[in-house]
């Protein structure tokens, strides 16, 4: 494949960096014919990729397309089974991330690699060779502060990581790379955890870096962002490159979508008419602390009615996780939460289960399933106390297996048998197991947290379909997701949370994404005449249940 065509000077938006695209100058980074196999998966199948000095090169692809694998190879975390990597034209071989960093390549992973108990400066010094022995905290903090100012990365050098917001932690990750003199920065889905306005701030920082001659590889599956920031775009699908280094100016979103998924992107779902019933869940003035004993919920009031999906839109760490936990009894709180008149707050989790609250937790492997127990054991987690699974004190093994077999078939859980350990299931299958278990009890109320995170396209569609079926079946669903698109596609109403409060409520049909984005970052408070700001919670009638369109259009 013609890896790096000696293209004419870059697309119109070529930055004024130092000689960005002179033909004779080799690419800052070049990967040729990369192959990487995992047991049972060909993650990268002969991938070519190149980055020029001073450009933002977007790498686009669905989950599972092999983007992260490729970048982990470039960052020295994995070794390619085949292929070559060149930096500034010279072949290199990375045995560890440190080799990559030494060659000027740094990566900001989706899951940050920071030490929570250490300070910003300590994290930045981590793994460096100098100072060799004695660490002079004051001097290093000064250096970090200077670097932060230079690139507009606001963060306090002495702060402990666990005290920082997700956005701030991302800045620390970027600072870490800059401090190491990285010339090429790889950012793995950096905006996934950011509000739209934070993302824009990040883009400004990225521009500042390319202006200074550095290169950025920007991994994403969000087309809009890619169009906004990238100079060139490479698209991957199923481990292969489907479009190599296209100038972003010359392609349309539609083209990219086609390249990415191999078909047109499916639009919004065909939803049944919105016909809410009685109030199922009502929370009034709920306050709770997070794991660090800091206030996480500061007076949340909300209602979910039967037959509706209420989406909670919020940037990570604004109390939405704690909200799910107080409703399901996993976290103590102040205030009252009722399920159909029955108080469930501050009761043991068993009480919420009995009251008919199903919970699809964010942490599938740690909370939603017991990894070393069998599929069958995992499927009875919520009903082992009741017949037919239990007979008095005993659990009926035969009936458990029958039930498990049925669920396994009904929800298409791909596993060799119901005796297979849950940890051997893929992410999508595990989520089908959890959803199957939770839905099978015909819950009146469902709390679903990040139900599709990390799943592939097919699995996402299944999950969405199952949730909508429950809604149409009369359940009330509280959908907590950091993916705004998902919320807008599924929810009937959207509540925006910021710093433990509900700062706005919208009808999903008429919601203004820009407005929601502003509220998510706490910027909405200044806006005059904003319907959601004043009444944190009093949204029942305001949400306009009479807006019931028969069909959602794309």
């Amino acid at each position, binding site marked *: 494949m013609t890896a790096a065509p000696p293209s004419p000077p870059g697309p119109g938006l070529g930055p004024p960096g130092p000689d960005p695209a002179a033909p004779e100058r080799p690419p800052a980074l070049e990967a040729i014919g990369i192959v990487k196999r995992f047991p049972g998966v060909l993650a990268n199948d002969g991938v070519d990729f190149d980055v020029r000095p001073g450009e933002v090169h977007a790498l686009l692809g669905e989950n599972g397309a092999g983007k992260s694998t490729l970048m982990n190879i470039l960052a020295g*975390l994995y070794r390619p089974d085949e292929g070559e990597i060149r930096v500034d034209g010279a072949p290199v071989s990375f045995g560890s991330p440190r080799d990559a960093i030494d060659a000027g390549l740094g990566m900001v992973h989706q899951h940050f690699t*920071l030490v*929570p*108990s250490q300070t910003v400066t300590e994290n930045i010094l*981590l793994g460096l060779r100098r100072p060799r022995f*004695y*660490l002079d905290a004051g001097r290093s903090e000064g250096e970090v502060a200077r670097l932060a100012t230079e690139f507009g990365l606001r963060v306090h050098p002495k702060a402990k990581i666990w005290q920082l917001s997700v956005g701030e932690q991302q800045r620390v990750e970027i600072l*870490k790379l800059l401090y190491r003199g990285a010339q090429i920065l790889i950012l793995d889905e950096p905006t996934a955890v950011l509000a739209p306005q934070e993302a824009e701030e990040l883009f400004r920082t990225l521009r500042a870096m390319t202006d200074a001659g550095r290169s950025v590889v920007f991994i994403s599956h969000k087309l809009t962002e890619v169009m906004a920031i990238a100079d060139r775009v490479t698209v991957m699908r199923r481990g292969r490159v489907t479009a190599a280094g296209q100038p972003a100016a010359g392609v349309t979103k539609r083209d990219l979508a086609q390249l990415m998924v191999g078909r047109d992107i499916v639009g919004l779902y065909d939803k049944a008419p919105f016909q809410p019933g009685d109030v199922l869940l009502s929370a009034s003035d709920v306050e709770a602390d997070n794991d*660090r004993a800091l206030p996480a919920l500061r007076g949340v009031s909300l209602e979910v009615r039967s037959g509706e999906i209420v989406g909670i839109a919020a940037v990570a760490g604004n109390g939405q996780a704690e909200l799910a936990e107080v409703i399901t009894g996993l976290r103590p709180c102040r205030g009252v939460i009722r399920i159909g008149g029955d108080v469930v707050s501050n009761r043991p989790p068993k009480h919420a289960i009995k009251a008919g609250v199903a919970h699809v937790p964010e942490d599938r492997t*740690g909370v939603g399933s017991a990894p070393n127990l069998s599929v069958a054991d995992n499927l009875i987690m919520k009903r082992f106390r009741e017949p037919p699974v239990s007979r008095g004190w005993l659990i009926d093994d035969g009936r458990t297996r029958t039930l498990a077999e049925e669920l396994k078939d009904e929800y298409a859980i791909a596993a060799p048998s119901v005796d297979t350990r849950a940890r051997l299931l893929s992410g999508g299958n595990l989520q089908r197991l959890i959803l199957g278990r939770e839905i099978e009890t015909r819950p009146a109320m469902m709390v679903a947290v990040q139900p599709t995170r990390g799943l592939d396209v097919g699995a996402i569609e299944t999950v969405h379909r199952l949730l909508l079926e429950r809604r149409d079946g009369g359940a009330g669903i509280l959908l907590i997701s950091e993916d705004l698109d998902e919320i807008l596609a599924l929810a009937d109403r959207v509540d925006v949370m910021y710093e433990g409060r509900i700062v706005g409520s919208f009808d999903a049909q008429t919601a203004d994404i820009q407005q929601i984005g502003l509220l998510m970052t706490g910027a909405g408070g200044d806006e005059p005449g904003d319907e959601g700001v004043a009444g944190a919670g009093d949204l029942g009638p305001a949400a306009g249940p009479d807006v019931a369109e028969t069909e959602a259009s794309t």
Partner: protein
Amino acid sequence: MDVTLLLAAGIATGTVLLFAAVGEIFAERSGILNLGVEGMMLMGAVAGFSTAVSTGNAWLGLALAMLAGGLISLIHAVVTIHLRADQVVSGLALTFLGTGLARVLGEGLSNAGETARMPVFSIPLLADIPIVGPVFFHDQSVLVYVGYILVPLAWFWINRTRPGLHLRAVGEAPAAADAQGINVYRTRYVYVFVGGLLAGLAGATITLAVSPGWFSDLTTGGRGWIAVGLVIFAQWSPLRAAFGAYLFGAITRFVLDVQGVQSVFGIENPFLPGRSATFLLGMLPYLLVIVVVVLGSREAARKRVGAPAALGTPYVRGERGV
């Protein structure tokens, strides 16, 4: 009974716990829980003592004791770091192995009689300070002085140096450390080994300095476990560990010494040897460990400082980690 003498003896006894606890702090800070302290101490105790018996050289005994503790700790290291075995089970196995092996190797040593000991001396000038001098600097074993140096050194190493920074990172967030090019496995091997060296030193401190002789597995009498408990109380800080170790040393001495007193204020001492109440008094150190661990756990919960986050978890690159 003379309080300064009691305290001075307590410091010497506490030095045993100090070495073992600081060693365990290093291992646990790297994320490896090593419950085999008792076994490693016994290995050190027997290696040190038998070397001193056969060569007459206590220093050589000391070196071999540390080596013995270090080497046996490597079994735990391989099994838990590379083979990802459960650290609790492996640590228990190490205790069994160390205890059994020490008993086998120490067969017949009980009758060894007088042997070489580590030198005892006073520090000029410092020994003359009132109260402090007689307690800390008068006629103490050289190992006690080593303890005084070790504590600040260990603290400095952990909190103010690059290797210490990396040690803490490996124990708190191995994935993050790995991503920065720190060799998680090597770091853990090194500090488990250091823990073994210090446990061996602790064992030798018993047999070559504090209470010379070999009494089979009663030589340590559970002090390895007390050290593990102290680490929780110390919240993984060498400074607090020193405080706890010396305190326990003093209490242990007190329990022993109180049996030597005939009567107090004319009341006959109920704790004379042979009196069954002695056994109730003997429970004191063990009960105190429980109290101290409870207090330590409470405080840790309140201040939200706890065990190194990755303690007890094997690190596997690419797996969902801490």
